[in-house]
């Protein structure tokens, strides 16, 4: 077990494909109970980093530990404590929302499946759609269903890949508040990717900007904005996206 309260420790993480370097020796630490944002333009390496942390993509070099365990070798220890949601991952279309959640509740070995499923459906305002086939749900409803799945096992660590993409502002706000509530009540640690900088400022305790697989800057949203003399993360994002190549050469964390 780790001696610090670091839930995730990443050192010199590199992922190379044949002609592309998706992650270029970046390091980061995520503390227990914080919401940590992985930010950057398309192709920066956010999702690749998330996949490596989840243990579904093996790195070319570097060291990764989650709760002191390797996500590649100790999956059995980590799987019950971790979950994941993405706007781009779905569940079988011809099963109802409730049936899909029931299947995952069984896979996670939950003792009181029914109550857990009903409370999550209610939290994400999906109770009325519980019997609907998953394929008939709107993309926003499917995103919320994925979030229900992600919280089924009361995870200690949650990976969220653009969880509010395709949600209207009202529902996106509901999702943010619900996630925040879970995080506060259960001390949940969240690693979060999003292109919505206003949302990141509201939710994240700390953020890490990636550009071409390299860590450019890290800190609280305010610290990062101040560091670049900008008044919002959105402006920092645009600045880094446009000048990131220069930053690559000049900046180290």
């Amino acid at each position: 077990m780790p001696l610090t309260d670091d839930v995730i420790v990443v050192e010199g993480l590199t992922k190379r494909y044949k002609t592309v370097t998706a992650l270029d020796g970046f390091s980061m630490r995520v503390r227990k109970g914080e919401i940590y944002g992985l930010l950057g333009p398309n192709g920066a390496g956010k999702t690749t980093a998330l996949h490596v942390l989840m243990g579904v993509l093996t790195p070319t070099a570097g060291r990764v530990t989650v709760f002191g365990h390797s996500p590649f070798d100790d999956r059995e220890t980590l799987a019950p404590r971790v979950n994941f949601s993405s706007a781009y991952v779905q569940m079988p279309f011809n099963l109802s929302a409730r049936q899909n959640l029931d299947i995952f509740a069984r896979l996670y070995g939950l003792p009181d499946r029914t109550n857990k499923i009903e409370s999550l459906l209610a939290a994400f305002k999906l109770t009325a759609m519980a019997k609907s086939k998953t394929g008939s749900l709107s993309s926003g409803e499917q995103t919320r269903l994925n979030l229900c799945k992600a919280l089924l096992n009361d995870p200690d660590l949650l990976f969220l890949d653009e969880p509010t993409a395709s949600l209207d502002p009202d529902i996106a706000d509901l999702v943010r508040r619900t996630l925040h509530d879970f995080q506060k009540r259960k001390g949940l640690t969240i690693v979060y990717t999003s292109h919505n900088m206003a949302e990141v400022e509201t939710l994240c305790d700390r953020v890490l900007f990636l550009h071409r697989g390299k860590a450019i800057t890290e800190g609280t949203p305010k610290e990062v904005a101040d560091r670049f003399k900008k008044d919002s993360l959105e402006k920092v994002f645009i600045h880094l996206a446009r000048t990131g190549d220069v930053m690559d050469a000049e900046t180290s964390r």
Partner: protein
Amino acid sequence: MISFNRILTIVRRYILIHFKSPARLLDLFFWPVMELFVWGFFTVYLKNSNLDSTGRLVVTLINALVFWDILYRSQQALSLAFMEELWTRNVLNLLISPLRTREWVLGAYLYGMIKTGIIVLILLVLASVLYAFHISSLGFSFIPLAFNLLLFGYAMGLFTTGLLLRWGHAAEALIWGVPFLIQPFSAIFYPVSVYPAWLKPIVLALPSTHVMEAMRHVIDTGQFPWPSFWIALGLNVLFTLFFSWFCLRMLERGRSNGQLVRMSG
């Protein structure tokens, strides 16, 4: 430790997916029944033309048809189960859950066994009603022979799943194509003696060939040829080990080159 609860959850899940989809239900009945009609009426023609005065050919053909379906459906069980996850973009959800690869494979095997069992039952009942065919023509021998075909179908399922892991959706057609690659060389509707000498080593390397030869032997003599059974079983063990290695190798490759996550989202 393997969790039987998770294995049964996978079985439950595939059964739910199957029985809630009219297209998949049709797939369960349509093709085997149509095949039975074709071969059944062909055997009626043989009978009426006095081309099969002993009735042996009829029994052999219908048994061959049922056995072919066992092989074909069990091969599809695993690869179609994996395809199901690709179609619904659900692979990542399973990969990060506590479900282990071997639990998923065993769940898919069990689901395949149930599916194959239902199809065989339907074929036997229909063959009995329409063509006065009786399973008693093979008696107890049916079980060990069918068991060997089930094993070979599963081994081929591992192979096609490995191909899916390697090439993703591009390899989709192989799920249906691979069984037909071995069909002409498995002595299903004709004996091994019809093959040219140069082809026989390949033919005899397939467990399915030994099962089909054993089936004809039982119909001809009423005796169960244990050597054929053991040879088929031994070959099945070899095929299973080799294709398991291949499938796991492709899984690791997919984890390393990102193919697995690309297929998932």
